[in-house]
């Protein structure tokens, strides 16, 4: 299990999106890097992210919780 510092976040918290879309032309509002950094920091500092599903399952069983298991391109603590 790993605790991460400020990192880019996936789109799951409506923070930095890690997706980009093919757009012919669409001037959508851009979230600037500083905002993304802040939001990613808030999420990844407050939550411990498991990289091993078995260990996550054990923890979930012990704590009586469900598992939020995220498939992403890249690493939650790096480039995505």
């Amino acid at each position, binding site marked *: 299990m790993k605790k991460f510092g400020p990192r880019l976040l996936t789109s*799951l918290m*409506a923070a930095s999106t890690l997706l980009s879309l093919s757009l012919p032309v669409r001037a959508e509002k851009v979230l600037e890097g500083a905002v993304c950094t802040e939001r990613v920091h808030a999420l990844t500092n407050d939550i411990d992210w498991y990289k091993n599903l078995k260990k996550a399952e054990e923890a979930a069983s012990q704590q009586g919780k469900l598992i939020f298991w995220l498939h992403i391109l890249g690493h939650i603590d790096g480039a995505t």
Partner: protein
Amino acid sequence: MLKDQFVCGFHDISHEHYAGASGKHLPDQNAVDTTNGAGPHNIQMFVLAPDGTVLTCLPGYWHSQDLASELAFAQGLNEIWTNPEMSLDQKKAEFSRMQIGHISEEPKGESNRSRMQGFDIQFEAQKRLNRTDVFYNPRMVDPSGKHIPPNLVKTTDVIMHERMAARPFVPYNKFDVAAYADYGKPVYDKHEMYRDANGQLAQGANLSQEPMIGNDPRAHPVETAVKKDARTGISAFLRYGLRAALYH
């Protein structure tokens, strides 16, 4: 909600066969908002029971308010899964019923936030009209993908719940992610790093040099070169024999 009620983890799918591709972003770089369900090949958000059973899976990006609703919904599904009074068949039937039923129980506006991207609709119409499930009436859909009335296109929340309804309480290690998360284009690129604060592409931006991640040759330049050399060698061998292959 995530912090207090879930154990969280992630898996890097950039080398999985079903993964798509995207522009590569660092943590402090720009981002752009998008619609629910966009980029299904690049992100999948599973909610699992502690025993690894899939309760739900959100393909692509999801707005936080809609994500929260779906997480709460998954908790309701877990109550069915752990109900000792129900048989497995009863549980599966209830799972499917709840998935379809949830479409009408979603937060206000979720449907509007779940409209498919135009290029994804076009892709589905052009490439797989005879086997896609994203249209309500495929026979009414223009195969060129250019003139498709919005009311013919399912929103991604509908697609998600319909596909989940067909997969009641499947173990994670048996879940067919490739098929489940497959709709729309496999490559997404919004060029966030090349957009100004107003969302316009900066003049002179060299988009062809944008770093990529996932299943795209630009994301694996060394691997791509090795494969290309190998293919060239094999081709020469088949045509001209071993000596030619050695000297290709």
